[in-house]
């Protein structure tokens, strides 16, 4: 029983961490162009790395 006192909160905390990470990613527009992101990894930006 005592183990549950810290195991359940920590499990929930980790879950919530994942959830908030997903929501943040969603809000910051990282899912707006999934195909583009997959293709962009192939591009060598020789002049300007930051785009």
């Amino acid at each position, binding site marked *: *029983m005592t183990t*549950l006192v810290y195991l*359940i909160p920590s*499990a*929930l905390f980790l*879950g*919530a961490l*994942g*959830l908030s990470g*997903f*929501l943040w990613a*969603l*809000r910051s527009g990282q*899912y*707006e*162009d*999934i*195909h*583009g992101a997959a*293709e*962009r*990894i*192939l*591009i060598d*930006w020789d002049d300007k790395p930051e*785009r």
Partner: protein
Amino acid sequence: MSCCAPGAEMALDLETSVLPSSQEIRLASRSLGDDLHQTDLSVPTVHCAACIQAIEKALGRLDHVEGVRVNLSTKRVSIQWRGNDIPPVVAALGRLGYEAHLFDPEVGEKDKTLSELIRAVAVAGFAAGNIMLLSVSVWSGAEGATRDLFHWVSALIAIPALAFAGGIYFRSAWNALRHGRMNMDVPIAVGVSLAYAMSLYETINHGEHAYFDASVSLLFFLLIGRTLDHVMRERARTAVNGLARLAARGAMVQRDDGTRDYLPVGEIEPGMQLLVAAGERIPVDGRIIRGASDLDCSLVSGESTPKTVASGERVQAGTLNLTGPLTVEATAAAKDSFLAEMVRLMEAAEGGRAHYRRIADRVSALYAPVVHLTAFVTFLGWVAATGDWHRAVTIAIAVLIITCPCALGLAVPIVQVVAARRLFENGIMVKDGSAMERLATIDTAVFDKTGTLTLGKPRLVNRSSIDPAMLALAAAMGAHSRHPLSQAIAGLASPAGQPTFNEVTERPGFGIEATAAGNTWRLGRRGWAGGKGRTGAEGKTGGTVLTRNGTIVASFEFEDALRADADTAIARLKNAGLTVEMLSGDTVVACAEVAEALPVDHFTPTLLPSGKVERIRQLSNDGHRVMMVGDGLNDTPALGAAHVSIAPATAADIGRNAADFVFLRESLLAVPLALDVSRKAGRLIRQNIAIAIVYNTIAVPIAILGHVTPLIAAVAMSASSLLVIGNALRLQRFATTEVTRAPLATRSGIHESMQS
């Protein structure tokens, strides 16, 4: 995914498509403040990293461009720029081989729904996962204080899920109830909230059974289906939005003092003088003051041959000016123009679809009362039998939970998502699920002629009787004009040895004149190009000829080219048991020619837009379910009047918006394919509903007898959902075999393109 071959990739061979002018783009851009503007263009042909890099580099190098970002998923490029004049982005894209289109900006609305749905799925998924873990511990034997603790934790986790994810269902259910309707969301909302309330009561009273897991995982499953449905429709809408706009957004207005202004169409008033260059569309109804040209009226009236116009004649909004610049005096504002009249006719014509109720709604209208009544009777029965109120309530709610239409709520959308995806891969966009249900019920197909059964593009038919040298000459001359007949001849140019001319001039309404090596060549109308022929064809009046110094050396005969696979498509529709009709605004002769080539049952020529609507009404009144396939502005009211409607991607903008399906490839096989997939989807939907009902007839007696525990409920619900989803996925197999049987769908330069 293959690599870049821009230009060759895109399905739509929009030869008459007009690149947006810079003024038009400026009108469509939005200001980000601080002199910064953003313009979004649809570039349907981008599809790989090399495209992204090429576009972003080339546009980024232009002056005044602040930032360029390609979105590969939506196939759009957004450009941020400074200053008054938009940088020549369209031209730059054109040089790279990408055709850019403007689209109607929709004000961030779609994203709101989608991101709300995705957030809801995430929250519900988080809650469902955690509660299920706790529930598994309870089922495995947690007892006493531990069980109570787990129940309390579950209750807490379920609150945000119910409030946030459930809110979508509660709002929709409330909306339906308030308007006195029933939809599938009503029993869901009732079941979920009652399950939560009872579980909370049980938890407070240290009860054994709590249904938190059931109520939250139910929401999770249903939300997945709903989100998929939304994504699918959004994708179809984006793809349709990305097509070229065929209506003018604005026009160049010449003021009395000689100054010129580019005004949006909505601000053009009668009496203004408009300059319409060759290649532009006439923005409003008007009268020609100066200039002569040929007008392509196919989108407006359905006539396939261009009309020669000269000063003093009236022109209709939406026609395409082909050959010469025109000055037009507007005689009507945009809201009174032909286009607006079509929209009004369409609204007035709204046919069977307005009254159509979706299968899911019809089922739930029966289902919800039955379920709620069963639960209520169970409750009364247990009270009467045992007098134990608590037990009666518990069992009644268990009945509600077990009958909660998880499978039923998924049965319809999942099938439609799979079907829409199949169609999408074949270049057919579906606007919504009800369109597929409606398409499955039709028994009559009505086709427009110009632009639908035919391409609206002429094709040379007497090629073999023309001297190849003369044909090469004519082709080289034809390349200088936008006139469809010239374009058709130019398309036959031999790749080697292009003849050269000293001077080429186009005479709007007549033809092209060129000089080479002391000879004057004319390609155009017989009466203008030259009198005497050596081919003995002087008797004829019309027709297109090539003359050298006034002597006819070749004459050309054209017919409107049939759309790829039109005959196969119509034969298939007839095999599927449909009556096929053709309605056209074109002449009797032109219609008869097409009717001869295709096995249509009968046709009606020279129809006005209202005549087409009338014919469809008549058919509907005779008890037929009519599908309309058409592309022109003149078809739009008919598209609205029909039970279900399909438009090719080359259709006028409002036609595309009015249609339930839009097909992107040239082949007309899209129509039978859509019908086939819709019918199969309809069959699967009925099967799924049957599965759900069978499930209920087994599960409900168990629940009524009071043998349902949360474990049984969880297993039964998941099992029925999986069964329904598995059945829906069978459609994938059907449709794949369909495509392999129809390899012609990718003929005539039409490649896989909108796939991602």
